[in-house]
Structures are given as C-alpha cells and as structure tokens.
C-alpha cells in the first residue's frame, strides 16, 4: 500500500511541477507578446510576434495580433506614401508650369511690339496681368510643396530676432504706404536672441506681413516684447472667428481675392514648427492677432 501512496505522491509532485512550469512559461509568453506588440507598433516593423511557449491558444493570439497589426501598419504606410506622392505631384506640376508660362509671357511681349490697335493692346495687357498672377501662384505653390515635403532639418543658429524683424518691416514699408497703412511698431530695447534660421525667419515675417498688407483695413501693430513673443495685429473686417480658425489651413482664402493662394500662412506655420516655434491666430474685437513665439532653448543638437 505504502508503495502505491509514495508513487501517487511522486506523480502528483511531478504534475504540480509541470503545471507550475507551464504557467510560468505562459506568463512569460504573454509578457513577451505585449512588449513585442508595443515595439512593433512603435517601430512600424514587420517582425511577427513570437512566443517561447508553444501553447496552441497563445500561438493563436500571437498569429491574430500579428496579422491585425500588420494590416494597421500597412494602412498607415499607404497613407503616408499617398501623401508623399501628392506633395511630389504638386511640386512637379508647379515646376512644369514654369516653362510654358515663361514662354507665354515671352510671346506676349512679342505680340505687344507687333503693332496692335488700342483695343487689342488693352486685352494683351489684361492677359499679361493674368499670366503674372499665374506665375506668382505657381511660385508660391512650388515653395509650399518644397517646404512641406522637405525632410531635412533647417540648420539653427543664434539669431537676433530684433534685427530680422526690423529688416522685414523695412522691406514692406513701401507696400504698406501704398495701401495707406501706417504701421505702429514697438520693438523691445533688449535684443532677443533665439536658435532659429535667419533666412527662414524673415520668410515667415514676410508671409505674415504680406497677409497683413492684403487684408488689413488700414492699420497694423507689430510688437516684439522682451520675452521674444512677436505679435502682429490688424483690423480685418472680412474675417470672423470661424475663418480665423482656418487661417493656417492650406489653400484657405477669405474671398476670391486676386493673387492670393492661401498658402502664405501655411508655409509660415510649417516653417515655424520646423524651427520648434509656435504660431497662433486669435480674433478679438474685429482684430486679427497673429502670435509668433520661439522658446528660449539651449543649443539644439
């Protein structure tokens, strides 16, 4: 009898040990599945989930998760690829438009000199204006598509924002005067330095000022405070709260304003964000307020 008891006991101990090991292995496998799934998503990786335990149920979970994650990742890739393709197409189209447009302008010049009567000349002048507008549009579209699809980082260096802003304002002095806008400028005495790119920064200012010239009702406030926050403010009766929220959207224009592509501010936003800055638009009491801010950070890597 005792022999049978001992045998039973031994068998039970072996059974319990087996179960214990099995549970440990399954727990380990589940833990591994979780970490592998996380990694797979984070890295957008093709690697399938594997488990050290060959338990059929766990293997089924692993296989299911692998196929599902794969299809999610594939959808994501297709999306980015499609996006990239469109950007490239826009770039190519705007590039290819340049040659025929220039050619058309050239012929128009010849046409003007070929002894037209008054009425014909009038039409040619209109045509010329339209072609110039078209040229501007394609240029801006090209700039936008280049900026949007560019993956390289902009080289950042310590730049004085005061100088850059003053320079941009100076260039716009004439345009502002033409529109009868008397800008009110207050630039902080203290020189503000930030890690940005001077050329890009002045492009941002130009785009914002361009926008102001086009839509202002006759005033413009520019303010650079000591903390480095830059505010552009102008009355803009054509805008309202809803349209201000869309201001940075691609191809958004207030009305079918001539020569406006609705890309200027989008470009400004993309460039600002590439230089780790923040740009925002607000609306209060009929005034449009565009705030630009570059945080004062240590030297970037």
């Amino acid at each position: 009898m005792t022999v049978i008891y001992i045998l039973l006991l031994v068998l039970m101990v072996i059974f319990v040990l087996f179960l214990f090991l099995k549970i440990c292995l399954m727990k380990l496998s589940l833990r591994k599945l979780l970490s592998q799934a996380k990694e797979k998503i984070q890295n957008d990786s093709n690697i399938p989930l594997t488990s050290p335990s060959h338990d059929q149920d766990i293997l089924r979970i692993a296989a299911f998760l692998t196929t599902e994650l794969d299809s999610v990742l594939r959808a994501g890739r297709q999306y980015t690829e499609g996006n990239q393709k469109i950007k490239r197409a826009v770039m190519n189209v705007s590039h290819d438009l340049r040659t025929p447009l220039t050619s058309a302008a050239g012929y128009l010049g010849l046409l003007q000199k070929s002894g037209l009567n008054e009425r014909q000349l009038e039409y040619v002048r209109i045509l010329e204006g339209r072609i110039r507008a078209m040229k501007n549009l394609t240029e801006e579209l090209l700039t936008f598509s280049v900026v949007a699809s560019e993956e390289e980082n902009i080289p950042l260096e310590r730049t004085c924002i005061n100088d850059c802003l003053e320079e941009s304002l100076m260039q716009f002095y004439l345009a502002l005067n033409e529109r009868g806008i008397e800008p009110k400028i207050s630039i902080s005495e203290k020189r503000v330095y930030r890690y940005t790119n001077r050329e890009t920064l002045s492009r941002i200012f130009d785009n914002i000022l361009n926008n102001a010239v086009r839509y202002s009702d006759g005033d413009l406030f520019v303010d650079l405070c000591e903390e480095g926050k830059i505010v552009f403010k102008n009355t803009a009766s054509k805008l309202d709260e809803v349209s201000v929220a869309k201001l940075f959207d691609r191809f958004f224009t207030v009305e079918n304003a001539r020569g406006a592509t609705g890309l200027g501010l989008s470009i400004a936003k993309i460039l600002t964000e590439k230089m780790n800055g923040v740009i925002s638009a607000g609306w209060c009491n009929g005034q449009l307020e565009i705030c630009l801010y570059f945080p004062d950070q240590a030297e970037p890597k």
Partner: protein
Amino acid sequence: MEHVLQTYGLTKFYKRNCVVDHVSMNIRRGEIYGFVGRNGAGKTTVMRLICGLIQKSSGSYELFGKRDDDARLDAVRRRIGAIIETPSVYPDMTAVQNLREQCFVLGITDPNVVPEVLEYVGLQDTGKKRVRNFSLGMRQRLGIAMSLVGSPDFIILDEPVNGLDPQGIVEIRELLLRLNREKSITILISSHILGELSKLATCYGFIEKGRLLKEITAAELEEACRKSIRIQVNTTDSLACVLEREFSLFGFKIISEHEAEIYDEIPIGKLALALHAAGIELYRVLEKEENLEGYFLNLVGGASQ
C-alpha cells in the same frame, strides 16, 4: 524620416591593411540603397561589419537608432535579414528544411510562413530536391527566402545578381522592388556594376579602396547623367520664344530667371547669335554628357589619383 543604418567613420584594418576607411553612410527607411564599387573595394567588409560578423577597428555604427555598443543591439538585429557573399544554406537539406531551421532560430511557429515565403520567391515546386542540386538562380532566391522568413525591415544583399543570366537578374530585381513596395522593406544591395542597380536603387553610395566617395540620390544621379546644355542668361523671359521659333526646339526647361537647361541638340554658335539678336545676354554655357558607367569611372578614377 528615421535612419535604418548610419555609420560614423567605420574603419577596419586587416593586419596593417586598411580595408574600410572611415566610411560614413546613411540609409533611410524605405530606401533601396545601391552600394557600388569595384571588386575588392570593401563593400562586403562593410556589410560584414554591419552584420556583426567581424570586429570593427574604429568608428561606430547605429542600427535602427541603436549604437553598436548598446546591449540592445542584438534585439534590433532581429529586424535584419542578409545574404553576405553566398547564400547561407545547407546543401544537404531541402529548401523547406533550410527554411524550417531558420524559423526555429527566429522562434517562428506559424506553419504558413515557409510555404508563403517559398511562393514569394517562386520556389514552391522544389519538393524534396536538395539544395546542392539547385541552379545558381534558385540558390540565390532561396538565400533571399532565408533572409525573408523573419519578415525583416531591412535586408542586406551582397551582389545578389552576380553570375545570374539576364532573365534571373530581371526576376530578382522585380522581387526586390515588390518587397520594397509591398512590405516597405529597406534594402542595401551591392554590385560592381552601376547599371545593374540603375532601375532599382533610390540612393547610391560609391566606394573605392575602402573609402565612401559619394552618396547620391537616384534623382540627383539621373540629373548628373542627363545629357544637357545649361545656359545662364540675363533674363529667361523671351528665351523660350527664341528657342521655339528660331530652332523649333521644345526639349528645354526654364530653371530660374537666369538659367535654363536644353536637352536637345543645338548648335551653340547659332544659339549665341540668335540670343544676341533677341537682346538676351549669354553669360555661360555648360555642357554635360555622361552615362552611368562613365560617371562611376570618373568618380573612381578621381579617387585613385
């Protein structure tokens, strides 16, 4: 876009011979990187270094953002598949057995993986045939299948089309393009013939005597090898009229306000006269004519002087 592989001044000495000399290459996600160099230029050695088969002498590299001294490097190596020199397969086993062994190494338990991969490379009908009886092309494809069983994100192929017939080359090229497109696998592929890669690669690295001479995108290479005449003038406004009317020429492109590129044949002397007559000042004429091999030989020749 993130980098799959970056090397920083990677160097390898064999005794006193410098086989790889400060190679700094960058491969981004989703690219097909053509690694071009003559035989013995150091292509294979660079690949061995990256795969961890041999020890570097100095420099460092990063795989999927993990440096080579990082303890987690072995974990990211799981995302790589490679064929170095010859396909690494056991000649006395069948294709299925070879793949099954690699499945064990990778911990893959899904029984569908092996037939799927075999079908992908077109070897589904080999049955019980041992690898030693395979043709070169079949062996090469089995090698690719071996690197694919783990569904890698990055595959490294050392001269995969070497010694194949033209038909085989086309097949492998199609296969690689499909992998890159469908599974967005980044590919590093080496060859000593630039032309072989020209329909495949999106980016090139040229290596000679262990030094990486140049990294260039396919678009830039095509630009560099396109036969063209580049002219600089004071204004391109009426340039198009002149070209179209006087020379009935349409193969040109206006690049900026002062530059244009002409792709068709054009007599330079007449062009200069016609431009002068139209009141356009011609500043510079730059003629470019090079084919792919010429470009490569120029580059290599320049380096060996």
